[in-house]
């Protein structure tokens, strides 16, 4: 009789010790997911940095488009400079954008005219990192709750590698059935619609044409669309800023002729010069300048949105 209870007691005790130990380990040691999240937060709220990003889209291994974008940003001083080089099927186009003295200035390589627009205080740059830089931390916390719920158990797959010099590597790779079916379905529908409605993208002239160029370069997928692989890798500096972010997404599907396409999207983002970035300025004296108001800007950029 006593032996029986000794055994049960032992089972409860050993189980309890094991549970407390592992619970303690998971509570004190931060997980890859938490580390990643806190680094993203501090990077997003950072008001001053230089960002260099490359997006390469390949179709069946052949490079379709290559976009290189450098942003120097100082949100506190409301200034920003951006230089974009877009290569699509052998054609190269560059686009310069400045945000200086309460105006936006933009110019692409096809003309010598600088378009100057006074910034409407309520409607800042659209589709630009400058907006994200403005997000305050209370909004981030709300977003975090939502993200946690959406990510759910996927956060278990984020691996963390803490280096001796204080930097950290986080990575997550999701293949096949690790990608939740609902997310895969939603993303696939998005890809399908993206290919079909490319003229409805974007609002501002520069970005709408940019997006149009990117989207236009992707083969239009009609059937059997799915996301095969998603992988993210980030390097986090000692100051808890993301210094490098690599993202790879593979999408496969068939076009209208039934040809199978494997599209890969590689994003490579490097962030540097935190709190030490001075955006470039363009000197407009002696240059051809065209002033446009916001309203005209919309119409010029997107004919479909007149009744918007």
């Amino acid at each position, binding site marked *: 009789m006593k032996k029986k209870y000794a055994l049960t007691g032992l089972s*409860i005790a050993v189980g309890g*010790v094991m549970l407390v130990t592992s619970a303690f380990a998971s*509570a004190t040691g931060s997980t890859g997911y938490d580390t990643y999240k806190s680094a993203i937060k501090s990077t997003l709220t950072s008001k001053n940095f230089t960002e260099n990003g490359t997006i390469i889209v390949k179709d069946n291994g052949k490079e379709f488009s290559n976009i290189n974008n450098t942003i120097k940003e100082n949100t506190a001083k409301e200034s920003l400079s951006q230089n974009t080089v877009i290569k699509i099927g052998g054609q190269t186009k560059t686009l310069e954008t400045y945000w200086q003295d309460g105006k936006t200035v933009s110019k692409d390589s096809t003309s010598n005219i600088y378009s100057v627009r006074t910034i409407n205080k309520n409607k800042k740059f659209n589709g630009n990192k400058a907006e994200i830089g403005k997000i305050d931390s209370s909004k981030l916390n709300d977003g975090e709750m939502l993200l946690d719920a959406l990510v759910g158990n996927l956060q278990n797959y984020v691996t963390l590698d803490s280096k001796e010099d204080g930097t950290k590597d986080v990575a997550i790779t999701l293949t096949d*059935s690790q990608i939740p079916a609902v997310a*895969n379905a939603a993303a696939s529908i998005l890809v399908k619609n993206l290919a079909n409605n490319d003229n409805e993208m974007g609002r501002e002239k520069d970005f709408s044409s940019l997006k149009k160029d990117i989207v236009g370069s992707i083969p239009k997928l009609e059937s059997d669309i*799915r996301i095969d692989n998603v992988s993210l890798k980030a390097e986090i500096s000692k100051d808890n800023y993301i210094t490098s972010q690599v993202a790879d997404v593979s999408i496969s599907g068939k076009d209208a002729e039934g040809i199978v396409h494997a599209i890969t999207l590689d994003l490579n983002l490097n962030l540097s010069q935190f709190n030490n970035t001075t955006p470039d300025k363009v000197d407009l004296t002696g240059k051809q300048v065209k002033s446009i108001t916001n309203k005209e800007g919309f119409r010029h950029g997107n004919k479909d949105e007149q009744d918007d």
Partner: protein
Amino acid sequence: MNILYANVVSEIQKLCLKKRTLFLLIISALIPIGTALILSVFQNNVGIIPITKNQFPIFVLSIFTSYFLPLVIAMVTIDLFSGEFGDRNIKIVLLRPISRFKIYTSKILSIGIFIIVNLAIAFIFSCLALILIKGNYQFINGFLKGLVAYGVSIVPMIAIAIAITFIGQFFKSTGSGLTISILIYIAISIISRLSPQFSRITFTSYTDWYQLWIGSSILIGKVISSFIIILSYSMIFFGIGFYLFDKKEL
């Protein structure tokens, strides 16, 4: 050991004689087929493949481990414990020359076998339902990964069964025991969704731990830490559950 074996056999016989058990197993077979039918409609009409042929059995498994099996396990487990106390059938078992520890263990073992049979049926029928889905089915990426995923899912499912035997000790009727089990499961799931810290230390968040086994590489560290959490909960619930069962009077 022979007594234990004999009682496992008799518990399984009891399970098999219930119409409900057969009904639940038939539903287990129908879920993969129904899912495959819905999926083939998606494939043909919408043009997207949320789930490939290789992943289909694992997708079916996710339905089983997160919703269907916990419910089925609760029904069967509560029936074998609360149910037998409720209708006094437990007397017949207790009168046999067998210790209460062996009765308790054999009941859990027979539920374990029921879980294995259920998962086997789900795997076999989801493989059969593949005929309805277009695409390629590969041996390693499809069949082997599926087999591993179904195999390792036995562990968290048995842990759920042990936790429910613990809850079952507090009730003498099937209805209330089942209702409370389901409510607790839903409550834990909701809290886990809202708080990642909480979810890491509850074993019900590991019902999809097969995902750790089937990625491009097996995350050994995560597999071990998940297993330790599942095991420690099982040991605690088994210990307390047995204590309550042993002290229980008719």
